């Protein structure tokens, strides 16, 4: 059976620099896959290719068998993919609830329904006591939570998380991991995440892919990856020094 999200030999260059080079990756439906690698490895570029921010130079990306490469970001969202931004993009002059309601309006029948759904997502991400604050007044960890709440509110089948745990305390990381785990179990949502926090990667992902200089250098279970000498050499090894 074909995978839910299939990335086939995708490449993208910026002014001659190969940001993503011939990368293939499959994500099974209901799977939780982590994308790791050093800074500048091309992880976010790959996300942007999936999310329709810019076109790929070559390759193919399909979701449930349908070609999605070349669609606009809003069409990608319609197709069932929602993403967060590494550099968070809240709607600063709107409140937390309004921010999430914008997401919830995707597919909702009316404002009341959207606000109700948004409220649930706000509570899920532990922002209930800040629900009527303008987004510009939130701290960075709260903005990360807002990104997730807003993306989830569109009711995606596939959620792309770009470093949403960065800046969270270990207990907060565990809380968010628990949220994703229960969502995955309850709704069957598929998650592809970029993450540097190995604590989260280890406990969350079923499968890990490692990017380095735009190429996929390794792939496998979290246990397998941590034993791979090439991965230790270019990425994980460094982290132990820090």
């Amino acid at each position, binding site marked *: 059976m074909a995978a839910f999200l299939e990335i086939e030999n995708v490449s993208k260059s910026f002014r001659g620099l190969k940001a993503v080079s011939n990368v293939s990756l499959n994500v099974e439906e209901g799977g939780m896959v982590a994308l790791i690698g050093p800074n500048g490895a091309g992880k976010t570029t790959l996300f942007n290719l999936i*999310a329709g*921010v810019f076109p790929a130079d070559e390759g193919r990306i399909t979701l449930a068998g349908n070609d999605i490469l070349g669609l*606009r*970001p*809003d069409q*990608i*969202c*319609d197709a069932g993919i*929602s*993403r967060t*931004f590494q550099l968070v*993009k*809240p*709607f*600063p*002059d*709107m*409140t937390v*609830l*309004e921010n999430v*309601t*914008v*997401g919830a*309006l*995707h597919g909702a029948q*009316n*404002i009341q329904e*959207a606000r109700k759904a948004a409220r649930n997502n706000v509570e899920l991400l532990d922002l209930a006591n800040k629900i*009527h604050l303008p987004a510009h007044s939130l701290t960075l960890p709260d903005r990360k939570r807002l990104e997730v709440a*807003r*993306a989830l509110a*569109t009711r995606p089948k596939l959620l792309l998380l770009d470093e949403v745990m960065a800046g969270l305390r270990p207990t907060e990381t565990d809380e968010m991991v628990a949220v994703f785990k229960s969502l995955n179990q309850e709704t069957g949502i598929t998650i592809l995440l970029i993450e540097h926090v190995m604590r989260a990667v280890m406990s969350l992902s079923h499968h890990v892919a490692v990017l380095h200089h735009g190429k996929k250098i390794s792939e496998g279970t979290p246990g397998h990856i941590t034993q791979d000498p090439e991965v230790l050499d270019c990425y994980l090894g460094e982290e132990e020094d820090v």
Partner: protein
Amino acid sequence: MLADLTIKGKAGLLLILAILISLPFWSSSYIISVATITLYLAILGQSWNLMLGFAGLLSLGHALFVGISAYLAAYVFSVLGLPPVISVFPAVLLAILMGMLIGYLGFRFSIGGVYFALLTIAFAELVRISVDHMGFIGGTEGLFLPVSEGDRKGVDLINLRGHPFMFYYLAMVLAFLTLAGCRTLLKSKLGYYWQAIRDDQDAAQALGINVFRYKMYAVIYSSGIAGVAGVFYAFYQNSLFPESVFGIERSIEVTLGPIVGGVGSLFGPVLGAFILTPLGEGLTELIDFLKNSGIIDPKLKLNGLKLLIWGLVVSLIVLFKPRGIWPWLSDKLGFCRTEGD
């Protein structure tokens, strides 16, 4: 609309309504003419604010939508005798088509921010110069509506001929309809989407919003409201000149009320119009009075003084209350309910 207001806010609104409705019974015809223009500018401010304050689109060519609609309604009235109650439809449609043309070019080719504003200026100027050369609608000499002796008495809403009080009350009704309409839009899906696009276009698009389409809706509503105001203007003024209708000063004038009152707020454009227009008119009156009473030299030319004072007010607002007077004022007075349902 009442749900947003506290008891104090409702009382304030009632008081303002009472003053506005009773105004013709205790003030002068001069005050009524100032109040009519104030309400007219409040409508236009609302229309302009819908684009910038709600959707983040800066228009500096709003006079185009007003003027093109005013000209069409005036022309078909003077030539065919078609009453404005009918011609308002093609006139508003023309304004909307103009808006859609500018919007299409701007959004299709991703002309953002200040460059979009330049595009709106360019179109307004293009039409101004074109109308200047169109003899059949009067060209530079202007287009005049036929006015007969009895026209300034009575009430004829079909042909928009009547007593100045009729225009005053009509402007009031239109201003309230615009305010209520904008509020409904702001609280709807459209309003949420516009604000999202205003705050962060990329994030909005990632949440499934067709940015092009929703920006077009903003331009359509905004130019449509301006078009309605344009028909009112034509029949209130009875004379249209390319320079005084399409000139950049007219477009700038539209922006000042919302900037002073508060861009993005619902009452801001109304408040701004009620601060600036009486201020400008009062100043003109004051200068006339000083000239007539010989305190200043009657030959002294002070034509630009109104604009100078307006510029000063806008500068002060931008410096000290960049979000406008209304958000600050409603906070001070406790007029608006803070959200917490």
